[in-house]
């Protein structure tokens, strides 16, 4: 078997099949009416709560307490490189993913705390481009609880806004993870079960104002 031969044949078949075909005009992208910042933030909150994930919106001085509350009983916490340690409450066993933690070490963690690249209000979607403060993909995958800290100005109205916001990261070759609520399945008699393989719980903290910054 030669994949080069297959390649040539498939390409030839396509060109024969599409001889003389016209490229159709594409209609413009339909956009929803413009919303105020507060409307966008309210929509986002509504969607996150609809996914039954935790949601809290705080002013910068309240962040530390919000993280503590969101972590609940979780003690062993992993954080990505680039996440400011200042925002982690005392009394936790914090492991930074620098150098990289092993799969087993991650499996032993109770929670992970990260930032995000952008969040989409209409769908309640958090987009990670795995830049500083967001960690490798595995970090937000193995621990059972994900606490995600989002700056209010990172929340955009629509899916297309989110796609455009991470376009540069994608063009630079970075992977993305889109998260909309916690892991879920409806495979057994359509009964929704939260948490199969990913983090079973998601806690979203939205911080108003410019105070929160991921390092780097």
């Amino acid at each position, binding site marked *: 078997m030669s994949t080069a031969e297959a390649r040539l044949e498939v390409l030839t078949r396509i060109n024969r*099949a599409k001889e003389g075909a016209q490229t159709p005009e594409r209609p413009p992208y339909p956009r929803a009416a413009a919303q105020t910042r507060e409307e966008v933030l309210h929509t986002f909150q509504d969607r996150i709560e609809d996914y039954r994930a935790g949601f809290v919106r705080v002013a910068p001085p309240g962040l530390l307490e919000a993280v503590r509350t969101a972590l609940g009983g979780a003690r062993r916490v992993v954080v990505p490189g680039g996440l400011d340690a200042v925002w982690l409450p005392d009394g936790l066993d914090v492991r930074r993913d620098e150098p990289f933690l092993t799969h087993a070490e991650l499996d032993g963690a109770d929670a992970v705390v990260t930032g995000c690249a952008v969040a989409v209000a209409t769908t309640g979607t958090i987009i990670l481009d795995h830049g500083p403060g967001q960690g490798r993909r595995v970090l937000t995958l193995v621990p059972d609880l994900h606490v995600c800290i989002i700056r209010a100005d990172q929340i955009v109205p629509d899916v297309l806004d989110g796609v455009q916001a991470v376009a540069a990261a994608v063009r630079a070759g970075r992977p993305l993870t889109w998260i909309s609520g916690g892991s879920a399945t409806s495979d057994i008699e*359509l009964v929704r079960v939260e948490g199969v393989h990913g983090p079973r719980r998601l806690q979203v903290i939205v911080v108003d104002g410019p105070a929160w910054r991921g390092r780097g």
Partner: protein
Amino acid sequence: MSGLHPSRPFPEAAREAVGNPQLRANLRKVTNTIREKRLRAVEELPHWEELRQLGAATKDASLANLSDRLLELEASVVARGGRVHWARDAAEARELVAQIAQAHQVTELIKVKSITSDEIELNAALDAHGIHAIETDLAELIVQLSHDTPSHILVPAIHRNRAEIQALFNRELGDPQHLSDEPAVLAGAARRYLRQKFLTTKMAVSGANFAVAETGTVCVVESEGNGRMCVTLPEVLVSIMGIEKVLQTWEDISVFMEVLPRSSTAERMNPYTSFWSGVTPGDGPQEFHLILLDNGRTDVLADEVGRQTLRCIRCSACLNVCPVYERAGGHAYGSVYPGPIGAILTPQLLNMTDKNANTLPGASSLCGACYDACPVRINIPQVLIYLRGEANDQKGVTLESLAMQGMRYAMSEGWRFEGAVKLARLGQGPLVRNGQITALPGLLGGWTQSRDLSAFPPQSFREWWRTRNAEPGAGSEGGQP
């Protein structure tokens, strides 16, 4: 059932399935639940119709320049450290996966649910090489452990109830404690069993929902997190994609992420979507292979009417609104592609040469609900009628094929399908007995051989579905033989 080839003609398989009350009750519950939820999710977007048109045009634009797109995709994936392989047919694709596994001396690998891998009958082929493929989607795991086949694109185990799954897991997952029949308990058992596999298995196989030519980005859309596990944790990742899945630019992803989840699970967005381009140093698999699969797709592309079938994004919305699927269930279609999309895709992928598959375009009441539901506006009824003609051409000239030619002529003159249905509604008078059509000459004869058919409704389809769901026993429900 396995792969594409149905082992029997549809009317025969359907006759058996409609006689299974448990199956029909499960199917009715599932299709009704998703159908109602989907309407709500769609109504929330005021510009839904515009999104459908954009989705259709975006796929068409990519298909119109498919060889350029695929070459661009290949170059982008290679530039990001991935490898690209081409497969003319199922056998070549299977062989590629087996070779990669053997090169890494792998005897066990993990899989993300992928209909494309079912289409090429990958698991059985790997078994023959001594390689065990473990399905990690909960429903696929249920199907695999019970040596069964999927019956729905989205919820492959909808034909199983919790008691059956409880018995299966108690037997197969070797759990020390007895599992109750609570879905949460059963899902928990699967989580424990699979986590060990995710953390230790060296190689994974996935499908791909979309791939972006410009950036070499491959995408897997899912709910459970098993997809993220498979594309992140192993050292080696192989993704198999039909050549029709390629899009041009990164921004093209947006419209599909708007319409796919709402059409499919009726959610605003599915819980998890992973995007990756080649390999990322220090993050995820460090070896990535992308297999581009033809397996009949270029034949579909060559057909001007049938070509629109390649827009399909496998959302399963057409299954859930289909009155024939609701009664016959996925297995009756005998192929990995069930329901209305299966009725047009399967025979075309087999180039209209498979006698059993050629009965599938008859598996429809032509009510048009699938076209209404399809997020990429595939005119399934039009293709069904056209393919019935093609299938009849294979059989030589018959009365039915002459009628078919007339129908195709009407379609080619630019008649909208709705017009054709109106005509049918006007012309059906003498055939209707108590609201049912029990025998139809020509066009629908194949289907009424095994089923009574509801008369075409006097209202529009959407109205019909609403009233039908509102009044128990109304509509075609009364037509059980």
